[in-house]
């Protein structure tokens, strides 16, 4: 592969390098930059490519001392390639053959240092930024976690930072985790709990309900602009008379306080009724604070420790709160009830605890949490900082891979993501490759067992489990280079490339994840990354739009991300919970942000991407041509194809993007349309303060408009 100036070529070296575990690293490993915007990737050109399926590839060609440019000069000039038609041959939706030179936008380059071989793609940070609501994304080895991703967060608390690892365990890996759990002997404890209760005089006489009903009626008709009905006046007269009678007859001090509370509400209602129907303030119930003794079951602290101990309880969420300065607070203990289902609460020892919400019921957990919560794992460290490495290590207590992902493993995850994004699951070559990959794991495990069998002698049950787990994990690691070769060849065949080597050398092929916002990572789909102009051409003048509900555009821009509901809950932005998925089984919706294919919006508050390829290059996008109610996965119209999305006609179409969007970096909208001049001024001021002059290559004054 020559140096032809295509920025996409700089990553092709990763393929052959990854296939040889013994090859010297081509470049220094290092953390990905906080954002890929504007970062130039370091490049090493090689001529080598992966070998045939199942065979080790030749070692990487570059010498370790090969000069490595810090940035590709062409990266800053190739921002707007000409549109090309999509009528190419081959099964790939956007064939690489149509790629103009330098098609990769400059602002989508990966970070400076490109890890290779055994080097971690995302090193564990020594310090997790305290109070950062987005945390630090991390790629964990193996395939036990969804997208192999975990997030390390350090919530602020009076006791010091509370560091947490959050991830989603895949359904396939769940059996390993559940196998690690051991039932815990439980004991009863008695505790005092504060209670708030209404008085019997109130509940029997429906005082609160009557006042609330009258207030609702007044406010509803005031909003509708029609007359307050006569029965509302009559209802108010009834409850007012009831309050008067009780006041005259009752001398109980507690009752007097309650009656005074309700008389104040009645006065406000009367003022509205007779003063023009203005909005009645929130009517609250009068409550008496008391306490009661409750009995709870907790793990027996004196029980022997056979491993992670577990209890089943109603599902919860961490009670995270985001303050006005953007700092996320959580004390590591307070939790709010989740919408539905149960969860495992785990004691991992040494002050580490965990919560796991399974995908499937078990003999002791029979009520599943909602879809978006299934597989969610949280591991909480003791108070203090510096637990990042230990948090990852604790995954091993749950029989999950507990080390960061190597660059080689990254390519496996990248290829699996391509299979998903480009809908290659059913292609015979891919089906066969994935089957072969499983066989390779098994065969390697058998080999390792033969080598290590003597080590198992004399081990107890737990020791044997640990031994078996290490065999499997080591087998998966050892088989990986061959698996990558097999899958790459299959993906190449399914997408019309001549082979895995040709695919790895093609424009757009880049197995390195990119930061999207500060809190998560993503891969690009190589067909779109190779030719974003083709996507733009498909969409014509239309783009992707997201309308903001409450008009708080400034707060969203300040956060820098448009995050999914689940992510916002982790950030502490979302305080409420919801029962949506009990009524609507649209699994995964809470894990995505929703956009729509639309014309350029004429009014705000709205975010608009006139170039859909900016977002649709991501390999975690799916869409529906119109709203589907109660839709499970792959309901009518479900698609991952940008070309199909370009044909959407109904305004209720939905494009779902996992986790969220980086609004101030590589995924910045081309238009932030405000509702008022003051709002525009406020947002421009915010961007100036952050020294952001351009978004998506355009001056912010051109992007933020009225």
């Amino acid at each position, binding site marked *: 592969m020559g140096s032809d100036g295509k920025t996409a070529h700089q990553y092709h070296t990763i393929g052959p390098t990854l296939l040889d575990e013994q090859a010297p690293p081509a470049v220094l490993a290092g953390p990905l930059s906080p954002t890929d915007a504007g970062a130039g990737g370091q490049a090493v050109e090689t001529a080598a490519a992966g070998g045939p399926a199942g065979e080790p590839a030749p070692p990487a060609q570059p010498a370790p001392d090969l000069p490595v440019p810090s940035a590709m000069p062409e990266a800053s000039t190739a921002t707007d390639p000409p549109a090309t038609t999509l009528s190419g041959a081959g099964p790939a939706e956007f064939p690489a053959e149509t790629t103009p030179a330098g098609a990769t936008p400059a602002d989508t380059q990966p970070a400076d240092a490109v890890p290779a071989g055994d080097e971690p793609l995302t090193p564990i940070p020594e310090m997790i930024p305290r109070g950062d609501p987005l945390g630090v994304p991390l790629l964990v080895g193996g395939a036990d976690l969804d997208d192999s991703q975990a997030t390390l967060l350090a919530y602020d608390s009076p006791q010091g930072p509370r560091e947490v690892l959050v991830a989603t365990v895949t359904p396939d890996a769940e059996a390993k985790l559940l196998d690690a759990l051991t039932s815990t002997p439980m004991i009863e404890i008695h505790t005092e709990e504060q209670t708030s209760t209404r008085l019997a005089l109130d509940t029997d006489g429906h005082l609160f309900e009557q006042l609330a009903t009258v207030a609702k009626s007044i406010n509803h008709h005031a*909003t509708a602009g029609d007359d307050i009905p006569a029965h509302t006046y009559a209802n108010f007269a009834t409850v007012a008379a009831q309050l008067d009678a009780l006041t005259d007859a009752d001398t109980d001090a507690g009752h007097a306080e309650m009656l005074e509370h309700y008389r104040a509400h009645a006065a406000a209602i009367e003022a509205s009724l007779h003063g023009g129907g203005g909005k009645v303030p*929130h009517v609250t119930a009068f409550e008496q604070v008391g306490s009661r003794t409750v009995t709870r079951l907790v793990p027996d602290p004196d029980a022997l420790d056979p491993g992670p101990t577990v209890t089943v309880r109603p599902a919860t969420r961490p009670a995270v709160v985001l303050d006005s300065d953007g700092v996320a607070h959580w004390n590591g203990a307070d939790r709010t009830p989740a919408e539905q289902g149960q969860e495992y609460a785990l004691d991992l020892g040494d002050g580490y605890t965990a919560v796991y919400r399974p995908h499937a019921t078990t003999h002791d957990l029979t009520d599943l949490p909602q879809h978006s919560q299934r597989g969610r794992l949280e591991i909480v460290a003791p108070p203090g900082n510096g637990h990042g490495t230990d948090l990852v290590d604790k995954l091993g207590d749950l029989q999950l891979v507990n080390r960061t992902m190597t660059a080689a493993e990254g390519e496996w995850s990248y290829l699996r993501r391509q299979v998903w994004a480009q809908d290659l699951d059913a292609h015979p070559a891919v089906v066969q490759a994935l089957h072969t990959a499983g066989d390779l794991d098994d065969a390697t495990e058998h080999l390792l067992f033969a080598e290590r069998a003597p080590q198992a002698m004399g081990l107890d049950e737990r020791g044997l489990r640990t031994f078996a787990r290490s065999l499997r994990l080591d087998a998966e690691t050892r088989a990986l280079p061959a698996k990558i070769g097999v899958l790459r060849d299959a993906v190449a065949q399914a997408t019309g490339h001549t082979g895995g080597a040709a695919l790895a050398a093609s424009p757009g092929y880049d197995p390195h994840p990119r930061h999207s916002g500060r809190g998560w990572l993503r891969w690009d789909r190589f067909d779109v990354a190779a030719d974003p102009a083709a996507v733009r051409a498909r969409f014509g003048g239309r783009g992707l739009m997201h*309308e903001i*509900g409450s008009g708080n555009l400034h707060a969203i821009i300040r956060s820098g991300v448009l995050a999914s509901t689940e992510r916002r809950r982790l950030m502490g932005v979302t305080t409420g919970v919801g029962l*949506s998925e009990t*009524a*609507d089984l649209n699994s995964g919706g*809470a894990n995505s942000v929703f956009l729509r294919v639309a014309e350029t919006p004429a009014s705000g508050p709205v975010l608009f991407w006139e170039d859909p390829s900016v977002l649709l290059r991501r390999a975690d996008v799916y869409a529906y041509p119109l709203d589907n109610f109660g839709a499970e996965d792959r309901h009518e119209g479900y698609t991952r194809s940008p070309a199909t999305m370009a044909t959407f006609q109904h305004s*209720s179409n939905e494009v779902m993007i996992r986790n969220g969007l980086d609004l101030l970096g590589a995924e910045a909208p081309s238009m932030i349309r405000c509702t008022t001049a003051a709002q525009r001024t406020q947002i421009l001021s915010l961007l100036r303060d952050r020294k952001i002059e351009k978004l998506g290559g355009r001056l912010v004054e051109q992007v933020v408009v009225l």
Partner: protein
Amino acid sequence: MADEPAWLTVLRSLVAGQHTPTGEVLDAGAEMLVFNDPDGPAVFQAPLARMLRPVPEEPGMVWIRPVVGGYRPVHRSSQDPYYAFNLSTARRRGLAVAHGEVLPADGDGQPSSVRLALHGGQTALVRPASGEMLEELQRWDTFTLLVLPSETLADLARLSEDSWHGPYA
């Protein structure tokens, strides 16, 4: 509204609670059931908030707001509501109606309903809310009319958002 199809007129009336037996529209409302197979079980059921927005330039397209996302707050103060809704969860939804028909009131005084064949193959039935559905709708009314600021309710009624930000989101 004069030229709108009959199903839309009835849908508008149901959502507003015009079929109330008490004279107070807040005592009535609508619920929606959606079916993948007209003879199969409902795959979605929820009351509908008292808001509706047809799209004039897209005949058959109507935005609604199913009432979902209700919860009982914990660690609540005396000023907090007993019951609240997550406004991100109670998001607007689109009905892309290919064909609508009004189901006549029955002899027992049951008001009319509408059956909507949706583009995409699903069927929606919108009928007077009852039982648990009506109770949830009334909790929504309590929340939106007493707890939320008027401006927030007006924003909700525009049925234009793709995400909600701020309190209760």
